């Protein structure tokens, strides 16, 4: 907005500081807690800034929480596996829908829009029954397959819009040069939709990383659980659940993703904008 008075700027700046503080305060509270000794965490009155920084909670996570690395690697495996399915499937379908008119196109797009409007809960029960029959419960694949399905519709929409933006001269000249449709797609057009692919990657990544309901329902044993379901389940199991250890585990879980987000958020924002245009 074009207003540039000093007073206006100052007020806006102040609101920005307050809003940032309110949003970040819960995260900082957890980080501070993670550096306090157990006695300090459960002392009254509470302290906000740790009286003494200790690493005991982090050591407790490393030594006393063998589940933690398991959750972490399951999360990584499930995320990568989902991306491995979603990216090629949405790139191929996006190309077909974005650059061709063919019978059935309308039906596919209608189906995609319908799926986006239906809450995931509807799919939970039938997929559970199928996975029970196929022995996929408690396996990484048992999460990868439904996650890929649930994230595919938005991926296809984004890729469809991305391929549509490319001017058709490029495709025509590739065809004149004798490239077959597959080559045209892979070598000429796909390098031009990298931002679209990045948007799909970030979307899928965030969706998988934070998914809770399917993970909670399909992954009952520790060996298969992801972070979003594993950490809350620890709280219930553990005898005297210590918030010090939990805070340390939360901090370690959230730190890498937060750094990635702060650095790459431009692409995420662009991705949401892309997805929202059509979705």
């Amino acid at each position, binding site marked *: *907005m*074009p*207003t540039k008075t000093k007073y206006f700027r100052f007020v*806006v*700046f102040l*609101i*920005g500081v307050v*809003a*940032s503080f309110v*949003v970040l305060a*819960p*995260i900082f*509270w957890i980080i501070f*807690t993670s550096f306090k000794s157990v006695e300090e965490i459960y002392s*009254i009155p*509470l302290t906000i800034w740790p009286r003494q920084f200790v690493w005991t909670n982090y050591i407790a996570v490393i030594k006393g929480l063998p589940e933690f690395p398991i959750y972490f690697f399951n999360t990584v495996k499930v995320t990568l596996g989902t991306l491995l399915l979603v990216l*090629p*499937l*949405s790139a191929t379908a996006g190309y*077909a829908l974005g*650059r*061709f008119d*063919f019978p*059935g196109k309308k039906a*596919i797009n209608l*189906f995609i829009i319908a*799926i986006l409007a*239906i*809450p*995931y*809960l*509807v799919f*939970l*029960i*039938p997929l559970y*029954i199928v996975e029970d029959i196929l022995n996929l419960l408690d396996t990484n694949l048992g999460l990868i*397959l439904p996650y890929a*399905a649930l994230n*595919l*519709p938005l991926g*296809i929409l984004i890729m469809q819009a991305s391929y549509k933006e490319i001017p058709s001269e490029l495709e025509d000249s590739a065809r004149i040069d004798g490239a077959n*449709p597959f080559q045209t797609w892979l070598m000429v057009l796909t390098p031009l939709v990298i931002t679209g692919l990045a948007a799909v990657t970030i979307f899928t990544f965030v969706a998988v*990383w*934070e*998914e809770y*309901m399917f993970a909670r*329902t399909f992954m009952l044993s520790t060996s298969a659980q992801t*972070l*979003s379901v594993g950490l*809350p389940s620890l709280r219930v199991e553990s005898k005297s659940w210590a*918030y010090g250890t*939990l805070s340390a585990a939360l901090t370690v*879980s*959230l730190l890498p993703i*937060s750094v990635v*987000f702060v650095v790459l*958020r431009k692409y995420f*924002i662009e991705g949401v*904008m892309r997805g*929202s245009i059509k979705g």
Partner: protein
Amino acid sequence: MAKHVRRRSNYRVPWLFALPAVLYMGAFLLYPLLSALRISFSEYNFVYSEKPIFNGLANYVQLFNDPHFIVSFKNTVYYTLVFFPLFMLLSLFLALLLNTKIKGTNIFQAAILLPIVVPLSLAGIMFTWIFSQDFGIVNHILANVLHLPHLQRFWLGDVETAMNSLVVVGLWKYVGFGIILFLSGLKAISEDIYEAAKVDGVNAWQNLIYITLPNLKSSFSLVGIWGIIQAIKVYDQVVVMTNGGPGTATSVLYLYAWKNAFTFFNMGLGEAIAFFTAALAIVVSVFFNLVFKSEKR
């Protein structure tokens, strides 16, 4: 002749490219959807029943005679009524803030959008601790910083405040998405309009009322639908923080559906609630679309 051949190959190529995704969605979305519909019209206990036995609308009829379902429905409506207006206001307000080209917006943006990558279930753990009765920071601040000890509560254990506490967590998590959606609408408004207004000596307030907000109409519809759906499907933080309690004070539709399906293994009833929720989401979206369309012309 040549034209005919070319057109046929035109169909074959796109279909070859679309086929993998279409087959995948057919297997993992369309088949489950039809299967879900059948289950919702069936008597199907996952432990005792061999297979679903068609029983017509019995599950749906049972729902509306089930007080626990009615309570869950009412609680979901309550959550939505509190969450939704705050979600819209905060998203719009902060999007306008971040859209100004003032020093620091980049840092504010990073901070305010950060909860987007915090899983709601993990936010649930954080806020359980923050709202805890004896060692929670909220009660500490009320008593020792603001000197209002009478406002201290067992936030998650009190029927009066449990649901509102869950709304706070939902807002903390989701406002970032609302901001981005509004920002994309704001970025789409041409600078030329503001430039022209500047020449006419329009002030910031008039800019907002007469240029910015009217041009955001489609964003309102988009953010509105998205926000309402997030409210209708509230689940993650409920499970982690209250699991429906105290009593049934925070039992919501998703939670009750889940409990029917995976605690009592009554898949038919669970799926009926799921479709009720889906219908609710779709009706609200269509309504929203119509309202904002009819205002447009």
